[in-house]
């Protein structure tokens, strides 16, 4: 552990649902399953309209190396295959399935038989598992680093640093045994010298529970992280648990680390027990427009409006609905969007909270510089973006190290003048890709 920990922005916790148990919602009439629920190429649909599918039936094949298959989350019939505009701005195909309400599992679902690393990675790929913390990076691709002998330690993310979200808290509290089995699986197939589990100190019960669960294994260390944002950001988490620094332009594997979300680890164990791919998610439904905040277990593809309806609907007219927490979540265009594999929360804010804050001039106060967990100067990016000359602009952005920005949003959050700092950084990254030096 390092001497001091990174990430010290005090965002509100609002963990209203922390003490509640999750509730399983009834099967929705239809589910919408996009082929792109992960970073990388969309899956290729393997079903046609009219096909009968079951829970766990593969309906889309991985569309490339960095990709993931998709599975039906209900039993029923494929109603249509539509194009869906994703919240990120790209489009992909979406398979709409009409549920028969029976939730019949696919007869081919059986625990995978695995006896070596290749088999393990192939099975993980077939499970459809992607990073459940929110990023949605295909897990099997990460595991591939083991083949090159790069992975020496596993860092499990139980920080859950976003406001509102408590679905990982529930996993740690209720599924500690699955987390243990998941770690055992990873220890079996990977060469793990150490395992770190980072949990924010605002969840003492989870820290206690996991320390107890892993008391038999001294290579597993449960690390109490400060309750400040962004403890769950990959580089911050790696530094705060292991003391290692991921180099510029590098990946966690460059410092021998594999980072996985705690719910992803628990899912691995469940998958190897039953063979049921990733078809449902525990989702925190909360926010100022939500009447009854709660954690709901919902089939992937459940329309958000049905999910919110199940919790009791809106208390106020919603002004903004987002996937994930309010620091890094993506706002959606309508409540007809489905729950995705990497959806850990649906947060709905009322009209008042959705109103953007009043922007004023930068007063150079330095709060953003102090808040950046990586130690960047966000005002430099904003200033560089005003440079007219494309080459000069690109050079300045690179000098200010725009590539290191992980878009955690601390700078924008703390800015008293409400400057759109991280938003500018996103623009700057795209600008640099378009105009930067061709290497």
């Amino acid at each position: 552990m390092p001497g001091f920990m990174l990430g010290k922005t005090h965002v509100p916790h609002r963990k209203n649902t922390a003490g509640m148990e999750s509730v399983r919602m009834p099967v929705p009439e239809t589910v919408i399953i996009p082929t792109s629920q992960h970073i990388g190429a969309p899956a290729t649909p393997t079903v046609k309209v009219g096909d009968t599918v079951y829970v766990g039936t593969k309906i889309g094949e991985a569309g490339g190396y960095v990709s993931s298959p998709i599975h039906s989350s209900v039993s029923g019939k494929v109603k249509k295959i539509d194009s869906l505009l994703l919240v990120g701005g790209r489009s992909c195909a979406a398979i709409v399935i009409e549920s028969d309400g029976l939730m019949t599992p696919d007869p081919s679902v059986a625990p995978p038989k695995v006896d070596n690393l290749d088999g393990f990675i192939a099975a993980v790929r077939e499970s459809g598992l992607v990073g459940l913390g929110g990023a949605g990076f295909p897990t099997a691709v990460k595991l591939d680093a083991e083949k090159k002998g790069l992975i020496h330690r596993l860092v499990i993310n139980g920080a859950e640093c976003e406001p509102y979200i408590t679905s990982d808290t529930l996993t740690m509290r209720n599924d500690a045994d699955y987390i243990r089995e998941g770690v055992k699986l990873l220890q079996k197939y990977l060469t793990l010298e150490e395992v770190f589990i980072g949990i924010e100190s605002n969840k003492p019960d989870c820290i206690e529970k996991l320390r107890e669960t892993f008391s038999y294994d001294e290579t597993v260390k449960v690390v109490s992280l400060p309750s400040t944002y962004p403890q769950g950001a990959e580089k911050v988490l790696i530094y705060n648990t292991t003391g290692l620094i991921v180099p510029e332009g590098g990946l966690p594997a460059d410092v021998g680390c594999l980072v996985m979300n705690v719910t992803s680890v628990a899912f691995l164990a469940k998958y190897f027990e039953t063979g049921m791919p990733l078809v449902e998610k525990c989702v925190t439904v909360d926010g100022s427009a939500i009447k009854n905040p709660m954690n709901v277990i919902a089939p992937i593809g459940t329309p958000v409006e049905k999910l919110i309806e199940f919790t009791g609907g809106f208390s106020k007219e919603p002004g903004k609905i987002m996937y994930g927490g309010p620091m890094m979540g993506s706002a959606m265009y309508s409540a007809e969007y489905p729950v995705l594999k990497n959806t850990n929360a649906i947060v709905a804010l009322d009209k008042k909270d959705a109103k953007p804050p009043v922007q004023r001039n930068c007063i150079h106060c330095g709060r953003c510089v102090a808040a950046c967990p990586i130690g960047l100067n966000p005002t430099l990016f904003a200033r560089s973006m005003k440079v007219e000359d494309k080459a000069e602009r690109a050079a300045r952005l690179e000098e200010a190290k725009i590539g290191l920005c992980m878009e955690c949003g601390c700078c924008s959050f703390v800015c008293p003048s409400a400057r759109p700092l991280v938003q500018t950084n996103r623009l700057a990254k795209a600008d640099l890709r378009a105009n930067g030096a061709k290497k």
Partner: protein
Amino acid sequence: MNKLTVSSSPHIHTSNSTQRIMLDVIIALLPTAVAGTVIFGLGSLLVMGVCVATAILSEFLFNIIVKKEQTVSDLSAIVTGLILALNLRADTPWWQCMLGTVFAIIVVKCLFGGLGCNFANPAITGRIFMMMSFASAVGGGAVPSIVEVSSSATPLELISGNKAGALPSLWDMLLGLRGGAIGEVCALAILLGFAYLVYRKVIHFETPLIFVGTVFVLSLIITNDLTLSLYQVLSGGLLFGAVFMATDYVTTPITRTGKMVFAVGCGLITVLIRFFGSYPEGVSFAILLMNILSPYIEKWTAKRPLGGKKA
């Protein structure tokens, strides 16, 4: 379905605001303003009133004339007007106050693009403008109205031998019973404002501490006299400048280490001017010179990002 807002994250924002920060600075200035009024009489109120009103009005009119969005509500004009007023003698004629304020707001701030775009502190530059134009507004002490003071000369003028008279006691210096500008005499009131700003996390405690500390240590080295060094700390505009002007966000380095370097530089230049220059007081010039160096200090003290390769 009603219309939803779609925007890039983050979707929540701090409860702090620029307006709130400016309000905090105004609150922190109040003890000093009250003390100045008690010490120098109602003339102080007139000076403060004229400066603040002129500041608001000139920014308001400037924005209208150049068709810019109205910015008066950010309260920064009030801060500038108030700080400038506190830098003046209580008997400064109203038209001089107005001219100085117009210079600070229009020339130093608005013409450079308004709040956040100026490279020099408006209040300091306004003070220097007035010092050059009407020497009596800033230099030379006004006489406190509530006590008998043997000389109208400021302690710094007395120490430097420019004027004859007896020095006030250190206790009087702390309370502010001496000649000087409205806001710079009462050390206790300034410290109260300092404590408030630190408590509200508007400023870091280091800048004023290092600035004043540098002046104290260098004075001690030069004079080898503890009492005289304490007079150096309590005299002139040092405490006021260190707490309210050297901590200005806009014109100081953005990094915390940069702010420390800035403070050391301010202290050094203040001492050089006080002991070796022709002016008895050097705080304003020190801060102004360091304002100009700020972008360079900022560059030298840039943090190395986590994992960042050396360029």
